[in-house]
């Protein structure tokens, strides 16, 4: 059924297969590169729009991973990407902060929390809504169990703590930015 397994045949067939496959993949990569980039950009833009009030243009700072949103000439806020270790892996948030230092809104960019428990940090309305207009100068930024003002998700204290820490890190980034 198969060709003889001598050295020439084996090298030839394996080599040709690899060559052909890499050619196909190279072509596919070139064809899908633009749509993939567009999809990624659309996703980030959506995340920024979700966490900040209306803006007309966005400036990205790749070093500190934040987006500065402007409406005409006025800065409407900063959307800061913040990654912490959650219960099941990395938890990455987009935190929108207005120039006065309050959180406008937050959204989850990616997470690997337990479905049905920690994963609720991306769907639970009550948990997510408490971040709208969260003012760190009035409220204490830690979960209630630790003596703060953040309502944790039931049975997911570790995820809630991680989420809180991510917001705190974003606020620290913002403070460092505004002192520049």
């Amino acid at each position, binding site marked *: *059924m*198969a*060709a*003889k*397994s*001598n050295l020439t*045949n*084996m090298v030839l*067939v*394996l080599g040709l*297969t*690899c060559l052909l*496959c890499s050619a*196909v*993949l190279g072509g*596919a*990569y070139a064809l*899908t590169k633009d*749509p*993939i980039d567009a*999809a*990624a950009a659309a*996703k980030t833009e959506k995340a920024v729009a979700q966490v900040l009030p209306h803006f007309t243009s966005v400036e990205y700072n790749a070093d500190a991973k934040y987006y500065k949103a402007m409406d005409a000439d006025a800065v409407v806020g900063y959307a800061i990407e913040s990654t912490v270790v959650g219960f099941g892996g990395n938890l990455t948030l987009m935190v929108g902060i207005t120039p006065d230092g309050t959180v406008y809104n937050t959204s989850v960019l*990616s997470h690997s929390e*337990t*479905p*049905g*428990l920690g994963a609720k940090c991306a769907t639970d309305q009550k948990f997510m809504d408490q971040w709208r207009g969260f003012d760190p100068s009035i409220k204490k930024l830690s979960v209630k169990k630790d003596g703060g003002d953040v309502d944790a998700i039931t049975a997911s204290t570790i995820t809630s703590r991680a989420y809180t820490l991510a917001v705190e890190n974003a606020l620290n980034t913002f403070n460092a930015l505004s002192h520049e």
Partner: protein
Amino acid sequence: MSKIKLITDGLVKNNPTFVLLLGMCPTLATTTSAINGLSMGLATLFVLVLSNMAISLIAPVVPDKVHIPVYIVVIATFVTLLQLLMQAYTPAVYETLGLFIPLIVVNCIVLGRAEAFANKHGVGESALDGIGVGLGFTVSLTVLGLVREVLGSGSAFGYNFIGGHDGMLAFVMAPGAFLCLGYLMVLFNKFVKKN
């Protein structure tokens, strides 16, 4: 072998999940909801049909001693192709399935069908076998996902029917996956496979 039998064989006699017990890792991990199970099944179906066809074409010229590496390269190519296409056109689905798309490469169903069927049959038959086994995998994963979603989150295909209450969370997690799979296997073998 009749053409219809090739497809029904994949669904019943050679059902990859409930009879052959192949590809258990993605089966248990991705079936947290019916939609996830369905998407994983369709992704595997896509790879299975194309790799079955390609392998049935190249099998006569592949020397025996290197056939596994050659098959794996072919399968990996189709998986990467699928990955790029999903990233470009269905980014939301790609995100939920994430890691499990590249893992289709090492899914024993795909290599299993290549070894057990495609390298001994023609292109047409291999394509049908791919469709059959792929559909078998898709249906099994969707059913398993649906059962786990109904019990675990109280919803079906994303439609919630128990309001704000919590489901039985264990079924969304790994232990529930094993339990559901076990009971579904029992039911499948009792009622479907017998006839």
